[in-house]
């Protein structure tokens, strides 16, 4: 084994250990904030794996989109629905956990056997490496053009849909001296809000 292959192998073992350890932390830890940060660890080690697979562009896209957007969004969601109330314990919850663990272990065994038994048609061409981004661009505008356009439409739909689902009611103008109406309170975190009229006082002075 050459030095390069040895380094690749050791890096792969480290990244796999980091990824699987973080993934176990995501699903097993009680504190959900720890799980969210370990999910970021999973995403970063996945980007490392993509670099091992000669895919620099997709690794950068993974860090930007998953760590930068999805993980931050999940953390915002956790902060907004942070109900600090212990969950009522279910009777015999360990039974469902053991059963699910058994099913997952069986599925993993099945997949491993399938992976090891299949005669993969490994290609001996050299990977294009740095030319991947040009090739991806060519694919996006030739044979993957329709999925590309549909993905943009889907992102627009998801944007509008998320706003419509998560928005609150229209904030009415309140004259000074009147009590704050209930609609101004944040349903997730009730606290003091500045009404629209006092803000307009500040802008006029």
């Amino acid at each position: 084994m050459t030095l390069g292959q040895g380094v690749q192998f050791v890096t792969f073992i480290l990244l796999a250990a980091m990824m699987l350890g973080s993934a176990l932390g995501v699903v097993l830890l009680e504190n959900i904030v720890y799980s969210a940060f370990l999910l970021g660890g999973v995403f970063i080690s996945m980007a490392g794996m993509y670099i091992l697979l000669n895919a620099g562009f997709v690794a950068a896209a993974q860090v930007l989109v998953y760590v930068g957007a999805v993980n931050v969004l999940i953390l915002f969601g956790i902060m907004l629905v942070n109900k600090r109330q212990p969950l009522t314990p279910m009777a015999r919850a360990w039974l469902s956990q053991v059963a699910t663990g058994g099913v997952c272990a069986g599925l993993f065994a099945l997949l491993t056997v399938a992976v090891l038994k299949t005669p993969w048609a490994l290609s001996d061409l050299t990977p294009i490496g740095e030319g991947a981004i040009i090739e991806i661009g060519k694919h996006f505008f030739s044979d993957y053009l329709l999925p590309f356009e549909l993905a943009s439409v889907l992102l627009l739909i998801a944007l509008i849909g998320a706003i419509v689902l998560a928005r609150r009611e229209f904030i009415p103008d309140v004259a000074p001296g009147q009590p704050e109406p209930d609609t101004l309170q944040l349903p997730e975190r009730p606290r003091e809000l500045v009404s629209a009229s006092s803000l307009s006082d500040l802008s006029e002075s």
Partner: protein
Amino acid sequence: MQLQYFLIVAAALFCIGIYGLVTSRNVIRVLMSIELMLNAVNLNLMAFSNYLDPVGINGQVFAVFVISIAAAEAAVGLAIVLSIYRNRDTVDMEQFNLLKW
């Protein structure tokens, strides 16, 4: 033997995601488990692209689409969670049982 290593790691990540999806009581942890499963699928696609199709890299294009779809789905899923939390004042999956018989 390198391709099989990546596929086995992806299979393990997928099974961990399924375990989290079925057993979590917090609905945000369910969303995180779905992201784990999508990442496992992405790792599979990228491994196949590197070892079976290194010049055409169709697997990488597919993986980019999966990343964008997963981000959109995470946004909509969290909007739904927020909306449910306002109505039911809980994020416990055991309480979301209106469709149960």
